[in-house]
């Protein structure tokens, strides 16, 4: 019985740690590749990925908005892949980077599902956040 309890306590924690570590590692990997390419656009992309990687692990008030950071990371990565599909050069490092970015989207989606619930739960959070922002703006106006 005690064994079952231990497994129940440890498993989610381990899953969370592995998922978060994977997300941060993949984010920093693609940031490093973008930084190695030089040029303003790639450096800005690298800075964006680094900021999001830090936001994924920094404690404090950001912790409550982690779900939003996950969504932002998915959106940013998808936009980067889309930009490459339309405008990007085709060479081996670019293909490796896109593979990392696809894996990153999968890892963030997994973490998002695991930590934040499914799409319905996320939609509810977005709705609550939007309502809160609207109330704040209306109160100031």
């Amino acid at each position, binding site marked *: 019985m005690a064994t079952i309890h231990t497994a129940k306590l440890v498993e989610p924690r381990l899953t969370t740690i592995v998922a978060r570590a994977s997300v*941060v590692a993949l984010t*920093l990997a693609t*940031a*490093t590749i973008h*930084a*190695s*390419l*030089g*040029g*303003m656009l790639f*450096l800005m992309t*690298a800075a964006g990925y*680094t900021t999001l*990687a*830090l936001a994924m*692990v*920094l404690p404090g008030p950001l912790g409550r908005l982690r779900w939003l950071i996950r969504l932002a990371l998915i959106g940013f990565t998808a936009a980067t892949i889309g930009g490459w599909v339309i*405008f990007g*050069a*085709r*060479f081996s*490092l*670019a293909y490796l980077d896109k593979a990392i970015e696809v894996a990153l989207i999968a890892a963030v989606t997994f973490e998002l599902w695991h930590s934040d619930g499914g799409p319905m739960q996320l939609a509810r959070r977005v709705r609550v956040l939007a309502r809160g922002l609207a109330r704040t703006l209306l109160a100031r106006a």
Partner: protein
Amino acid sequence: MTRVHGRAVIALLAGTVLVACTGGPAGPPPTAPSGGAVVTAQGVAFDRTQLAVPAGRSFPLLFENRDGAPHNVRIYDDAGAQPLFVGEVFGGPSSRTYEVPAIPAGTHRFRCDVHPEMSGTVVAGSG
């Protein structure tokens, strides 16, 4: 992640940027191969904005990449619809001698596919 870890990550990325942008040593531009042209990339920029090449026959184009970042040379017509030549993308410091097929006389454009802001004019017929 602690503040120290955050600084380590930023330092790592800053180092990567430095290596990518500085690349190999600066030096005199390489000599163009016989009957061909030469262009160098350094600091995410080409060393010239105009390339003089022969028209109507294939020619060697020596491309020296002095950056750590990958670059290449693409030659295309002014409309940009059809590439006349696409060179292999490679990281530096290294060089390749591209064999460029015959291109028509006139003014064309060249650029790096990875960094489209690296660009210039190709004048075919004067080489």
